[in-house]
């Protein structure tokens, strides 16, 4: 697969005293979407700007599509193939959506209107095409901005909080469209705090804190890593009285902890066999098991656990 972004050992400082980015290395590949996550002030936006060549790193090597974004001439070749959505950008309130789109259509040298029409349909903006952007809600403005970075079908999308202000339905449609773009080979680097977007779109996440990459992997890997003690969950088909379950579970091994709820049993243990014994006993008692699996925290919980553990 082609590498779209390749950054090696990047350091950045605003004041030559404190490193805002410290030895950051990352890559994104064709057709891959990478989520850049981390707490506020971690350095996500700075990293995005460094990768775009807007800010100059103190040390390190950056290549985007094989070009150096710090070189002014090479930067133009990169910008022509990518779409960038900065965080918290606003629109010109006096312009109509049509005029706003016209600007970016000219800037990206787009001749064909089919993508624009498809995007207008997808974002449900056809009816407000002639309306002033100043009358738009926050979510509609966000859709308008997303539309302008997608009109030229870019090979690389760098977005800072792309789902900010979008409702669930719009988020789903946007994610669906992004997935289609991915299939066509577009790669994405998405700086976000939105767990829904990360879980549903990102193939991989890079977690950054205090300017350093502290985790790189899939969301599932983060969920596994972030769980302090291994936990197994047995989900039953029907609700069972808590007392009955507790009676069944007496005298089995020595798990660290068992939590019994109406139709779930959570078993914290290092020994997988103990969890299997519990499962066997439950089945032997004639209870129907819907699911027996390793319990993983949600992405949000895992993210929080992981950061607290660091």
């Amino acid at each position, binding site marked *: 697969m082609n590498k779209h972004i390749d950054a090696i050992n990047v350091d950045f400082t605003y004041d030559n005293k404190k490193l805002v980015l410290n030895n950051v290395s990352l890559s994104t590949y064709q057709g891959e979407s990478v989520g850049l996550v981390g707490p506020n002030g971690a350095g996500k936006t700075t990293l995005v*700007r460094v990768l*775009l*060549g*807007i*800010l*100059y790193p103190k040390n390190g090597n950056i290549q985007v599509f094989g070009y150096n974004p710090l070189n*002014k001439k090479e930067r*133009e070749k990169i*910008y*022509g193939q*990518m779409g*960038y*959505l*900065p965080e*918290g*950008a*606003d*629109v*010109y*309130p*006096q*312009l109509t959506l049509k*005029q*706003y789109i*016209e*600007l*970016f259509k*000219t*800037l*990206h040298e787009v001749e064909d209107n089919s993508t624009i029409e498809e995007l207008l349909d997808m974002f449900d903006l056809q009816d407000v095409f002639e309306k002033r952007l100043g009358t738009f809600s926050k979510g509609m403005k966000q859709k308008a*901005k997303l539309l*302008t*970075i997608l009109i030229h079908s870019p090979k690389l999308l760098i977005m800072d909080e792309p789902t900010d202000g979008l409702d669930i339905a719009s988020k789903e449609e946007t994610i669906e469209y992004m997935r289609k773009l991915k299939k066509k080979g577009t790669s994405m680097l998405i700086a976000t705090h939105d767990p829904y977007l990360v879980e549903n779109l990102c193939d991989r996440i890079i977690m950054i804190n205090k300017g350093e990459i502290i985790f790189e992997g899939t969301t599932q890997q983060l969920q596994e890593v972030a769980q302090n003690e291994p936990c197994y969950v047995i989900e039953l088909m029907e609700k069972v009285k808590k007392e009955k379950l507790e009676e069944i579970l007496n005298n089995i091994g020595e798990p660290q902890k068992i939590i019994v709820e109406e139709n779930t049993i959570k078993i914290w243990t290092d020994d997988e066999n103990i969890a299997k014994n519990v499962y066997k006993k439950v089945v032997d008692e004639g209870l129907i098991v819907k699911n027996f699996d390793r319990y993983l925290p949600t992405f949000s919980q895992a993210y929080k656990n992981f950061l607290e553990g660091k």
Partner: protein
Amino acid sequence: MLKKVMSIVKTDLLSSKIFVLMFFLMFGLGFGFLYGLIVRFTQVSELLYSYWLQGAAFLLGGLFSLMFPFSFLLTDKRIKAGEMILTSGIRPFEYIFSKWINGVFLGIVTAYTYLIVYTLLTLPLYEQYGNISVWLYVLLIAIIFASLGVTLGIIFTKVNLLRKILLIIFLFVLPILSFVLLFIISNTGIFLKFLIPILLVYSLLCFFLSVRNVEIKDFVA
């Protein structure tokens, strides 16, 4: 390249049309009409009155040329539109050039419109329209002030507070001295013949010096 520049010019004009119109009417009425009327009904010669109106038109054109590019640059930075536009592939110089064109355009349109309106008030000014220098001076004044406006915009977006203050003082020393001189010598003819070319060279120098090292980061909030 020109197509992209012109699309930014068009966008800025469309996005600021209400402000342009508001300032146009406000200054036009304020300077040209109300103050003009006061001058008209004092004991001044027709020629002096025509010079006064011509000067007011030049000044207002200059003000528009100065104010709008400066305001466009700061607004773009504030709403991060500059960041979006500059990462679409347009070079920083082309982006700034679009603001400069806007300043020149607005200055010329404003000054000429005022001149035409004021001409209706006095005949000697109408006679001066036959003189090519009136048209030329409007163009030169628009260029001067648009260059200063862009330079001012870059100073505001680029440098820290102390350097900002020093640079702004430095930038306006010559133009302000020129106007002081104008009032002292009270001879618009000399001002137009000698000082406009000097201010033109000065403003273009400021413009090219400020544009020389601009980076995208200068327009990123």
